[in-house]
Each structure stands twice: as C-alpha cells, then as structure tokens.
C-alpha cells in the first residue's frame, strides 16, 4: 500500500471516529479547512507513526507545517523515503 493510500485511509478513519465531516481531500484542500481539528491531526500523526515508523513533525529540523493535503502526503512520502 502506498504512503498516500495509508494517509488518506487514516484521515477517513479518524474523521469517522471523531464524528467529523470531511469537506474533501483533494491535494489542494487546506488542512485546517478539511473539517478536522488539531486533536484529529494529533491522532492521525500518532497512528501514522505506528504504521509507517516515522513522525516527520518531530524528525524534521525545519519548522515546517504542511498546509494542504498534498503537502501533508509529500511530507510523509519524503520522510519514509529518507
């Protein structure tokens, strides 16, 4: 399964668990407008760390936060490829 598939699946799962309605998950979707709050992102990041073995937020030396869904997927793809 590709990193992108895993990331997208985790967004769907957490949205369902947290009773959130995703406004869409295209590459251009701004994360903060996706319908998820920071608790949802915290959960997604922790679960992806367990599945993919990386937490790019903690590992990265740059103070960089992905803004769009496309950024987020690339953030994880780059981290797993590194």
């Amino acid at each position, binding site marked *: 399964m590709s990193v992108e598939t895993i990331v997208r699946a985790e967004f769907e799962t957490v949205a369902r668990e*947290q009773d959130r309605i995703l406004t869409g998950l295209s590459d251009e979707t701004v994360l903060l407008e996706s319908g998820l709050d*920071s*608790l949802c*992102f915290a*959960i997604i*990041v*922790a679960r992806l760390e367990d599945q993919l073995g990386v*937490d790019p937020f903690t590992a990265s030396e740059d103070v960089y936060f992905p803004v769009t869904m496309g950024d987020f997927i690339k953030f994880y793809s780059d981290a797993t490829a590194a």
Partner: protein
Amino acid sequence: MPLRPETLRAAVAGSRANLSGRHETVNLSDLGRALDADLSGANVLLRTSDQLFAALALIELDGVAARIVICPPDVKLEHLSSVVERAAIAVVVSDDPALAVVGMRFEQPHLPKPGTPVAPSQKTEWVLFTSGTTGAPKMVAHTLEGLTGAIQPANASDIVWGTFYDIRRYGGLQILLRALLGQVSLILSDAHEDVADFLARLAPVTHLTGTPSHWRRALMSPANAKINPRYVRLSGEIADQAILDSLKARFPDAAIGHAYASTEAGVGFEVTDGLEGFPADFIGRPGAVEMKVVDGTLHIRSPRTASEYVGGAALLHDGWVDTTDMVEQRGDRFHFVGRTGGIINVGGLKINPEEVEAVINRHPGVRMSRVSGRKSPITGAIVIADVVLNDAANDNATFKDAILAACREKLPAFKVPAMLRFVAALELTAGGKLSRHA
C-alpha cells in the same frame, strides 16, 4: 490487652495469635527475643528481605530504639547513603547479611528464642517511606500512637487477617498493627510468590486487604476460588465502581469497604456503602479527622498524620496535609479524580488518567486499564489506553469499538483514548499500585 499500648510488645502480651510468612509461622504467645543486641536509644535502619523478620524486629525495637526507619524492598541502592545520612542511622537490622551497609553496625534478627526482652525506655519514632516514584525517596515520621489511631477493638476472636500489601509500607503496616493489637493472626505476602500460591495460602483468611490493582489481579487468577473473606478492604488507589461491583459479585456475603489513607496523611476514612467516592458531608464534619477541599485537592488534619518529612521540606501547614489527591463533587458525593502530578495535557486541556480508566473499567469485559499521555507534536500529548480483558480469547475488535463508544458517550472528545491497545497484563509497582511510569 490495651488498645492504646505503650509499646508494640505490650500490645502482644498474652496473645495466642500467629504471624505467618511464606516459609515460617511464629506463634506470638512464646515470643522471647528475636534480636540478641540491646539497641536502646539507637537509630535503626530496618532493611529485611523477609516481611516476617521485619515484623519481629518491630516488636523487638519499639520502645527501645530512638528511631526505626522501615525500608521497603524497592529502595534503590543509590539512595541508601542519603537515607542513612538524613535519618542519622547507626545500626542496620536485617535478616540478610547481603543487605548490610558498609562500615555500619549490623544486627541480624532470628526466629524468637526464650529470653527477657529489653526494657522499654523511650517513645520510638517510626519512619516510613512515601510511595513517590522518582528521585530520592521521602521519609515521614510517625508515632505508634498516630499509626494506631484508627484501630478499633477487634469485634471477633476468629479473625484472620491477610494482606496483599507489604507491611513495610503504610497500608500493610496498618494491617500488621491491626492484627497485633487485636491479637489475631495475620498471613503475610511475599513479593517472590506466585499470585496463585499466595491465594492458596490465604484460604483461612477472614479479612483481606489490598489495592484495587491487587484485587483485579486476584480476580484474574482462577486460584481466587480458594479464598472466601467476609471482609474485603481496598485502599491505596481509587476504588472505582467497577472493582467494587466485581468484588461484590465474587464475594456476595462479604462486607466491602474502601479506605482512604496515605503515608503522609494517615488513615482518613472508610466508605462501606458499596459506592465509589465518599459522602459530601465528610468534608467539614467534626471529629478526629478533619477534611477540606482546597482548589480541588483534598487536605487532611488529624492526630494520625505524619509529623514531618525527615530531613526534608515541611509536611504540615497549620496542621494540614495536602494529599495531592484531586476530588470533584457530583451531587451529594465526592469522587477521586486523580493526582495533581498525573495530569495529561492535551492542547491545554487537562485530563486525569484515572477518570478515563474509570469509564473503561466499567465495561463488563474489562479487568483493568492504564491511561497515559503519548507525546504529540500537534497537541503536546494525546490520550492512549492499555487494556486488560477478563478473557484474552475475546473478540478484541468488538470490544475495542464498545469501549471507545462508551468513552465517547461519557467523556468529551479530547479525553477519549486516541489509541487503545489490548495487553496481557499491566505492571504493578512494588507497592501494589498500577505502575504509571512503565
């Protein structure tokens, strides 16, 4: 038999009761000497490997030694020199020469032999370690009078006490003193003994005590079929409704009580109505034990509190001890919700792990749980849960959904575990409490 004895040895005079360790039983009626040396006026570090020898040494030394520092088994070697220095120790008393302290006088207790006891010459200070988990252990000073302040006369002569606790800590020491003053028998635990073997040894017990975690572990052991206490007591951790109900179901004829006590604050109160928490009118009621709530935290003032930290900061403020146990009033009852140091902070919102555990534990398939914080780069922390099921063979996926659904119903979203794992067992500390630093 005086209920407020001058010394512990006076308390057991005329007793016919037994004190049973894992390997030996001592009948208190022919108690001679367990220690050959006369340690009058000495500051003693009591550091035994076997609880029975600790009990024998306490009877021998109370009223004789100036100070007895009772060392629980898990005090780390690296902290020993600081303990010796702060408590001005002169003699180490131990059944195990391997526990001697280099350069210090060493005395070894043995099973009682005929002999004339050393005459009592002073009030002995009893020093206990607090159940703190990190850094050098804190020591608090008690008197025999304060330690026995909550003990009522035994109401039956056929009582046999048993305890999952270690008698070298406050909770277990209470039971030792209760048995000795009541002149009834006591069966001691042993850290190296299998739960099933200990439960088998507890078969004669009528009065049995432990932490909620001890009890959960006992309920998980098929060997609990061997015990049938008529009095069940819990203390040392929050007794939630789930464990009270489980014990009631397993021991329908037993009186079940949960007590509030701590090494610093002494015995506070006991609740016997089968419900978690305690009646709101306990706060502010007159009596030997006064209680108040300050900023959500329980404070206690009573003759049973410790007097001071040995070689440390002040313990009492105007006579009051801050228990650091947080309580919350719901209707006509106060509930314990956690400890001031144990808070998980999720994006600035605070969570007591115990509050979430109480909801998880209420699920009928759950035996015990541990809720903790996991570091998060987004919110600082998220809530995670490790859960032990009654029957490991159950369908975990169904249980997980049901437990999380119950959490979502009872708790705001930020308190619901973001991740829930099933584990075979959860580690307990040497004191029998859920290990929160594993």
